[in-house]
């Protein structure tokens, strides 16, 4: 190691210590940042959950409407009779 290197190592050794107050400020900032991040994550999840709920409701209502519209009661009775299912309910009584 040259003399210049030695001199520079000596002169530039880390001697400074950050104050406690400064570190405390960083901890507080980190805490705040964490809270903000969590809040943002919750907000980001909300539209996704809402979209899923809307999709489920829409799909089920479309299915129900389609069943009501395309399969009238008479037709379904007939198809049950053709399959050999026994008649039930009011007619028996």
């Amino acid at each position, binding site marked *: 190691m040259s003399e*210049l290197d030695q*001199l520079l190592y*000596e*002169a*530039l050794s*880390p001697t*400074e210590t*950050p104050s406690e107050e400064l570190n405390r400020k*960083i901890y507080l900032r980190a805490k705040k*940042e964490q809270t903000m991040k969590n809040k943002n994550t919750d907000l980001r999840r909300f539209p996704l959950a809402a979209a899923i709920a809307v999709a489920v409701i829409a799909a089920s209502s479309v299915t129900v409407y389609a069943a009501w519209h395309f399969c009238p009661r008479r037709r379904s009775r007939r198809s049950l009779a053709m399959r050999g299912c026994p008649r039930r309910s009011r007619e028996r009584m």
Partner: protein
Amino acid sequence: MDQRELEQFIRQHGREIYSFCCYLTKSRQEADDLYQDAFVKVLEMSKLPEAYEGTKNLILGVTVRLWKDKKRKFARRRRIAEERFYPQAAREGADTEATQTPEAFVLEQEKLTFVRACVDTLPEKMKPVVLLYYMEGRTTGEIAEVLHIPQGTVKSRLFQAKKLLSEKLSRYKEEWI
């Protein structure tokens, strides 16, 4: 990085990072700002490297970038009110005084202050390289990683910086060594 990890990280590396900020800015107030801003900037990042050394490299890199950004502002402030920077060793020289005579201690401090002043006059590109090499004890490869520049560039900057420093210090070398 959670709260406990951050506290541990600052306990382990805070001193080195803060010293780096002090030597970069040459002002305690500006170093405080830079140190805090660098940490905040890194904490704002969504993904941090898992290894502690990786986080330290990231903070050092961010510090250099922020320092470059703020340099104009710092320069203006410095023009208005110049603040001299005295390292803690010079201010709290009690330990050194016990082993040296007061005269030797003062001379030693003067010498180190002069060397620091010479480092401070280095061009903006060379200063972080010199500080990382001598203060942090990093290799040229590691410095290249921190500053996102090729290793060859680091080597050439270090060589040029040494040449400049050697010229500046040559007048005083014979007296000291």
